[in-house]
């Protein structure tokens, strides 16, 4: 009995995946508890996927890198492998894998189809229980091999941790070149591991703070065009751009609502900025804050019911939460220092922020009621966190003192496993895409 084929929504991957085996979910002996603070990475063996032309080894390498970067897995050096003829067609010799302490094992194969597509299949094994945990196959155009690898890594991650993977995702960010005083900034998009960088603007206009729409097809951002700086909307497929709304002043700090129907942003009016929501279909705008202060960086809760934002109405920038209609504005940050750039976790349980305290710039999280504040990283300049869609990892940018410019980093919710994301030049303002359901 095959699982129902699941269609991957993006057209690029004309694939259907199906389970390779017929089992009801096996009772896994191995299990990674990712809810604890100090996770011992799970030793996993990932064999090169069989193929005629080396593509299999490339796919295995991407799967290995994804899992390793998560900090939850410790891929075993293939040089230690005893069984060399690993094939997805045969049950592995489990004793050969348990003896090198591989608790999980991945085998796979890539084969060309008559129509030019690749068939990629993999199996995930629990070596100590001697059971298959997962097995799927995908059909994809050869140029999408990296995406297939990320999808396989997601499947392995999900099966072993019980949480959704985040490897088949992208990041939109601001590419920075040139001197600090004359920085050229371009919108760029890449895979979450830094591969496949593509530039979305040419650099003639200063661009800031790009954010994905929930369906990943659009990006809203701030651009200094010819006249007043404004919030724009960019269609990724067509490259079409438009100004969002017809506001009587500078608009900035945009973000989509979780249903994709609205963009929420700040409007500058005289010395003050207030928060407005605009319905993208009706073009109706709603004013949500009205203070003689700077109200900015609004971000919806994942259910769309509430909004977190920063305001200096009390003196220094602090975090506030309000209902989506602007009612019930309540301060939630009370620590020593100032707080800004709040982002609500896709799981709803936490709000990440930038905190300035004692001359340091920190990335931290707190609960939506302001309790349980934890600082994940602290240094000369860390700013602008964005959540991986599973709510376990944050990406942000760091400008180390004396460095020429900012670079992107990711960090686990535990504050451990900090990783630099390689980009072709300096990079800032990352925004992680949602995952495709």
């Amino acid at each position, binding site marked *: 009995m095959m699982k129902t084929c699941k269609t991957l929504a993006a057209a690029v991957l004309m694939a259907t995946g199906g389970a390779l085996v017929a089992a009801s979910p096996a009772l896994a002996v191995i299990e990674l508890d990712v809810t604890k603070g100090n996770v011992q990475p799970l030793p996993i063996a990932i064999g090169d996927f069989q193929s005629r032309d080396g593509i299999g080894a490339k796919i295995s390498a991407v799967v290995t890198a994804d899992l390793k970067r998560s900090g939850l897995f410790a891929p075993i050096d293939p040089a230690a492998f005893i069984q060399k003829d690993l094939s997805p067609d045969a049950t592995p010799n489990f004793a050969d894998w348990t003896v090198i302490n591989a608790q999980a094992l991945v085998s796979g194969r890539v084969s060309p189809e008559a129509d030019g597509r690749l068939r990629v299949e993999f199996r995930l094994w629990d070596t100590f229980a001697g059971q298959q945990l997962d097995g799927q196959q995908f059909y994809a155009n050869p140029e999408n091999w990296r995406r297939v690898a990320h999808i396989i890594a997601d499947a392995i991650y999900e099966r072993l941790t019980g949480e959704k993977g985040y490897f088949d995702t992208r990041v939109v960010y601001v590419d920075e070149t040139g*001197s*600090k*005083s*004359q*920085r050229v*900034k371009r919108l760029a998009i890449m895979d979450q591991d830094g591969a496949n960088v593509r530039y979305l603007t040419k650099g003639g206009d*200063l661009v*800031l*703070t790009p954010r994905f729409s929930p369906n990943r097809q659009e990006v809203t951002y*701030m651009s*200094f065009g010819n006249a*007043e*700086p404004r919030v724009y909307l960019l269609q990724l497929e067509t490259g079409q751009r438009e100004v969002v709304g017809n506001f009587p002043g*500078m608009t*900035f*700090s945009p973000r989509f609502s979780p249903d994709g129907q609205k963009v929420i942003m*700040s409007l*500058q009016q*005289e*010395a*003050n*900025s207030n928060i407005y929501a605009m319905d993208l279909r009706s073009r109706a705008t709603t004013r949500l804050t009205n203070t003689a202060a*700077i109200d*900015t*960086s609004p971000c919806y809760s994942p259910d769309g019911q509430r909004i977190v934002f*920063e305001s*200096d109405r009390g003196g*220094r*920038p602090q975090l506030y939460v309000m209902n989506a209609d602007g009612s019930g504005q309540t301060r939630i940050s009370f620590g020593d220092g100032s707080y*800004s*750039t709040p982002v609500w976790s896709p799981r709803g349980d936490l709000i990440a922020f*930038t905190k*300035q305290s004692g001359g340091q710039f920190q990335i931290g999280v707190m609960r939506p009621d302001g309790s349980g504040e934890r600082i994940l990283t602290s240094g*000369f*300049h860390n*700013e*602008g966190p964005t959540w991986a869609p599973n709510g376990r990892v944050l990406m942000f940018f760091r*400008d180390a*003192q*004396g460095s020429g410019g900012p670079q992107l980093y990711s960090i686990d919710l535990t504050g451990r496993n900090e990783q630099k994301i390689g980009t072709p030049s300096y990079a*800032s*303002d990352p925004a992680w895409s949602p995952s495709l359901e």
Partner: protein
Amino acid sequence: MRRIALGAHSRIALALVAALAVSACANKNKNGLPDNASELGLGGAGGAGGYGRGNAAPGTAQDFTVNVGDRIFFDTDSSSIRADAQQTLTRQAQWLNQYPNYSITVEGHADERGTREYNIALGARRAAATRDYLAQQGVPSNRMRTISYGKERPVAVCDDISCWSQNRRAVTVLNGAGS
């Protein structure tokens, strides 16, 4: 290392070169960088940069930048017009009232020690405060527009307070060619 870069996108770039050359000279004799317009050589007799009062024809952009002073500075997270800035803005207003053909753009800037969105708003608040002060001094509002660059266009690029204090600024940029 301390380094001073040229100002952004300005018609008066040439004058700025001169002005910044003055400030660079001043630095050699001081421990910290000057953080107000007159010390930068923007507010008084320029001299050292070669664009003293004698070299800049009255009513020109050079005259405004070098002899009047095109920028004021702010305290951290503040948009209050300081006493030294009030003097500069009073001179700016007198000059602008004397040469009424110019329209101006007041650019508000923030230092790098803040987050991006907040600094955009802070720069706007500084630009608005500067414009309002000029308006009080008789410069018609319809000659003035404002724009904020947040922390995107620092003039001084180093990672300490000597640069940050120069980047917290409002710059009055002349638009219309008046004479």
